[in-house]
C-alpha cells in the first residue's frame, strides 16, 4: 500500500484585497471589475517559493520523524534559481541528513501533480518516504486578470507506505500540447489565450476524458467519487468538469479562489491537503492536475485520516491573515515596480559561497551548538564554548533551534536602515531551552511587539543580491502563530472526532 503519510500547507499572511487592485487599475481595464471580490494570498518581500515550500514542509513534518525522509521534491514554475537545486535549499533548511535525494520539478501547471505521481510510484517501488512539495509565486503583468487570480502558497505531502492517511488507488496521465498560456524561459510574465477556448476545449474536453479513463481503469464510477478536486484560475471550471464526468455537484471541493487565489501547480496539492483535512475514512478523492494534458490521481482516505496532528494545515494558515490594500506594495514586492530605496539600499549583498558552504548548517538550518559537558546552548556553534566560567573546547554537538519557541529580549523598529518593508523590526530572542539570537522580525504588527513576547522562527529571504541575482536566506522571528486563536486543523479534527 502506498499513499499519503501526512500533509501540510503554507499560505503567506498578507491577503491582497482584489477590490484594492480593481480600484487602482479599473480605469485602464474596466473588465477587471467583475473580478473584484475576495482576496488573494500575497508573499511578503522576504518570501519566495523556497521559503513557502519550507514552511509547508515543516507543517507537514511537524513533530514527525524527519529521519525517514529519503527524498525532497519541489514542484514549481516560479523557482528562484534556474540552476541551483531549489529543493536542496529546502533540504538544508529542514536540517535533513546529506544522504537524502532532492529534485526540482517544473515546466507546467501539472508539475505538482506529476511530481506527486512520481513520488507515489517511487515509494511503491521501495524508494522510501518522499516529501513532495509544491510552491508558487507567479508574477503577473499589472492590470491583468492573472494579477487578480494568482495566489502565492505552498503545499506539502509526505508520501510513503506506512501510517497512511490516504491510500493511493492509482493514477492516469495524458499529455496534449494544449497551450492555454505559456512563458518563455527568458520572460517574466505569462502570455494567455482566450479563456472561453481554454474552458471549452481544454478543461471541458481533456479533463473529463482523463477522469473517466482513470475511473474506468480502477473499476470505479462517478458515483464512487466523494470528493472531486480540480484547481483552476477560472471560476466554476471544477464544477463544469465534474458535471461532464457525472460526478455529484456536492463532491466538488472549493477551489479557495476567493480566499487565496490560485497557486499554480501547487494549488492541486494544497486542495488535496484541504480535502483530506475534512475527509472521512473510506472516502474516495479524485485529484486532477491540468496543464498540457492532465494527471488524475485517485485516493481513498484511511481510518487514520481523522487522527489529531500538530499541523496548522490549509485552514490554520488561511486563518492567519492580514488584509493588504496597498496595491503599490504588491507591485513593489512582486518586482513590477522599482521604488527609490535611497543610497542605503545600494549596499553590496554579495555572498561568499565558500563561507556559506562551510556554515550551511548554521545559516540554512539554524543549527547551534550544545556543550555535551555543561549543557550550554549557543548560536552559532563554536570551537570554544561561550560559557564564561568553564573553558570547554570541541565539546559541542549540533543543536537545532529552528523549531524552538523563543521570547523577545530586546527589540526596535528601525526606520533608518534599508528594508523593503519599513520599519525594520529586529531584536534579540532567547530560545526555550537556551540559546539566543539577534535577528530580524517579520510578519509583525506595528506597535504590537513587546519584551517577553513568544516568537517562532521562519526561514526567509535575508537579502537579495540584485547585482548577481543571488538570494541570501536566514531565519527570522515571527509572532507565535500557534499562541493565537488559530488552532491546528488536526487538533480541531481530533476534538470533533472525540465527541
Amino acid at each position, binding site marked *: 500500500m502506498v499513499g499519503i503519510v501526512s500533509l501540510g500547507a503554507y499560505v503567506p499572511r498578507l491577503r491582497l484585497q482584489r477590490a484594492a487592485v480593481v480600484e487602482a487599475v479599473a480605469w485602464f481595464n474596466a473588465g477587471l471589475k467583475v473580478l473584484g471580490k475576495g482576496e488573494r494570498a500575497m508573499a511578503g518581500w522576504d518570501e519566495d517559493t523556497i521559503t513557502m515550500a519550507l514552511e509547508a514542509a515543516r507543517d507537514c513534518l511537524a513533530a514527525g520523524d524527519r529521519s525517514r525522509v529519503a527524498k525532497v521534491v519541489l514542484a514549481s514554475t516560479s523557482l528562484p534559481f534556474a540552476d541551483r537545486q531549489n529543493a536542496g535549499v529546502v533540504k538544508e533548511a529542514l536540517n535533513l541528513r546529506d544522504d537524502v535525494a532532492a529534485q526540482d520539478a517544473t515546466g507546467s501547471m501539472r508539475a505538482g501533480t506529476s511530481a506527486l505521481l512520481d513520488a507515489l510510484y517511487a515509494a511503491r517501488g521501495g524508494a522510501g518516504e518522499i516529501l513532495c512539495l509544491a510552491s508558487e509565486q507567479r508574477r503577473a503583468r499589472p492590470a491583468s486578470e492573472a494579477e487578480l487570480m494568482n495566489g502565492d502558497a505552498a503545499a506539502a505531502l509526505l508520501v510513503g507506505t506506512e501510517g497512511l492517511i490516504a491510500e493511493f488507488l492509482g493514477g492516469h496521465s495524458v499529455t496534449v500540447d494544449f497551450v492555454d498560456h505559456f512563458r518563455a524561459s527568458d520572460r517574466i510574465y505569462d502570455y494567455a489565450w482566450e479563456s472561453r477556448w481554454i474552458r471549452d476545449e481544454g478543461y471541458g474536453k481533456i479533463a473529463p476524458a482523463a477522469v473517466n479513463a482513470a475511473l474506468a481503469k480502477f473499476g470505479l464510477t462517478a458515483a464512487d467519487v466523494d470528493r472531486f478536486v480540480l484547481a483552476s484560475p477560472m471560476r466554476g471550471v471544477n464544477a463544469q468538469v465534474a458535471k461532464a464526468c457525472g460526478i455529484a455537484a456536492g463532491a466538488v471541493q472549493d477551489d479557495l479562489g476567493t480566499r487565496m487565489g490560485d497557486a499554480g501547480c501547487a494549488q492541486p496539492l494544497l486542495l488535496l491537503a484541504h480535502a483530506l483535512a475534512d475527509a472521512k475514512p473510506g472516502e474516495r478523492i479524485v485529484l486532477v492536475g491540468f496543464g498540457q494534458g492532465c494527471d488524475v490521481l485517485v485516493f481513498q482516505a484511511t481510518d487514520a485520516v481523522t487522527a489529531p496532528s500538530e499541523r496548522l494545515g490549509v485552514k490554520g494558515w488561511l486563518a492567519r491573515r492580514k488584509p493588504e490594500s496597498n496595491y503599490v506594495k504588491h507591485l513593489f514586492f512582486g518586482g513590477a515596480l522599482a521604488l527609490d530605496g535611497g543610497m542605503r539600499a545600494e549596499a553590496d549583498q554579495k555572498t561568499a559561497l565558500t563561507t556559506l558552504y562551510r556554515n550551511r548548517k548554521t*545559516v540554512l538550518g539554524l543549527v547551534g551548538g550544545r556543550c555535551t559537558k555543561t549543557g550550554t546552548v549557543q548560536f552559532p556553534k563554536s570551537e570554544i564554548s561561550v560559557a564564561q566560567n568553564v573553558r570547554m573546547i570541541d565539546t559541542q554537538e549540533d543543536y537545532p533551534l529552528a523549531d524552538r519557541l523563543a521570547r523577545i*529580549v*530586546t527589540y*526596535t523598529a528601525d526606520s*533608518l536602515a534599508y528594508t523593503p518593508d519599513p*520599519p*525594520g523590526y529586529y531584536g534579540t530572542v532567547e530560545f526555550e531551552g537556551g540559546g539566543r539570537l539577534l*535577528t530580524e522580525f517579520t510578519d509583525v504588527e506595528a506597535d504590537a511587539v513587546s*519584551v517577553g513576547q513568544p516568537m517562532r522562527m521562519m526561514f526567509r529571504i535575508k537579502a537579495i543580491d540584485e547585482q548577481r541575482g543571488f538570494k541570501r536566506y536566514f531565519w527570522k522571528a515571527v509572532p507565535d502563530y500557534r499562541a493565537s486563536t488559530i488552532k491546528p486543523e488536526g487538533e480541531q479534527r481530533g476534538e470533533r472526532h472525540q465527541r
Partner: protein
Amino acid sequence: MASGIRDKVAILGMGCARFGERWDADAANLMVEAFEEALGDAGVDVAQIGAAWLAVGFDTANVGPSGIPLSVALRLPNIPVTKVENFCASGTEAFRGAVYAVASGACDIALAMGVEKLKDTGYGGLPVRSRGPYIDNIGVVGSAPGGFAQIASAYREKFRIAPQELKRALAHISVKSHANGAKNPKAHLRKPITEEQVLNAPMIAEPLGLFDCCGVSDGAACAIVTTPEIARLLGKTDLVTVKALQLAVSNGWESQGVGWDGSYFHTTRVAAARAYNEAGVTNPRLEISLMEVHDCFSITELVTMEDLGVSADGQAVRDVMDGVFDADGAIPCQIDGGLKCFGHPIGASGIRMIYENYLQLLGRAGERQRKTPPVMGLSHNLGGHPNQNVAAIAIVGLQGA
C-alpha cells in the same frame, strides 16, 4: 605584577579640529588642523615625535587603509605609524597605543590622531558596511540607532519604567547637551533645543527620535604625550597625567551566552571597574569631576551612568531629571556638548573627549569652563552594538590628584 598606567604619562599638548559637516575639508585637512593646534600647545618640533597611532572607524569611506595617510598629511619623518580600528572606541585605542609606547620607554614623545571624514557618503547617518562574509549571513544589517534603541526596550522592562517617562529623561539628556554645545565654538550642533522639539521629532528607531541621535560629523583630534619628567624638562608646569586607560571587549557572552538582559553595557562595567582600580578611584560619583561619555544616543548616556557606577541601577532616570549631569550639576556629563552636539567623527571621538577633559582640568575651556575646578576627568568611548562591543575608559587628572 603590573602596576597600571597611573601618572606614568603626561599629556604634552592636544588639538581638535572644528567638528561638523566640513564640506571644505578632506581628512588630511582635518588632521593638519588638529595637529597644528596640538603641536603649538606641546611646544615641540615634529622631529621630536617618535611614533604615531592613527584611529579611523570607516577607513573605506575616507582615508583608506594603513597608517600612511597620517604620515603623508603631517609629513612625519618616516616614524612608525600604526592605524587602529576598534569601532567607535578607535580614538581611545590610538591614545592607548601612544601612551603605552611612552610608558614602555620605547619612545619619548608619541602622537595619537583620530580622524573621520563621514560626509563624503552622500547620505545621512553612518556608512553601511559589511561585517565580513560570515556575519553577513546571520547578523542583522540594522542601523546604529536601531542597535542602541534595543537597550531602551530591555531597560524599560527591567525597571518597569513607562515609555513616556523614559522618553522624557532621554529628552532631558539631549536638551542638556544642546545647551552645552551652544557654548562650544568647535561643536557641530550649536542650537539650544526644547523638550517639546525632542519629543515631537521624527522617529528614527523606536523609541529614539531624531534628537536622541548624535551628530554624524567630520573632524579630527589629537594628543601628544610624553613622560611627566620630559614634560617638565620641556617647561610644562601644570601637568595633566593619565590615571587609567582600560579597554574591555565583548567575547560573545552578551550575544550568545546566558544571563545578559539587554539593558546595560557589560563591557563598560568591566572597563569601569578596572579603570577605577587603576586610577585609585573608590567612589566615582564623588571623585570624578566631570565625564565625557559615549552618548551616541541618549539612551546610551542614560544607562552608561549606571554602568559607570555614578548612578545606582535603575536610578539614572531620576538622576538625569534631577539635573545631576547638567553643566551646573554635581557631576557634569558632556559639558562640551558630547557626541550629541560636539559631533561624532568616529575615529576622533575618543581623543576629543580627552581633549575636553584636558582643557577643563587646565581651566582653558572658555565659556563652558566648569566653575568648580576639576581634578579628574573620565572619558568613555564605546564601539559596536549593545550586545557586542568595545568599551574604552580613559581617566586623566591633575598630577598629584
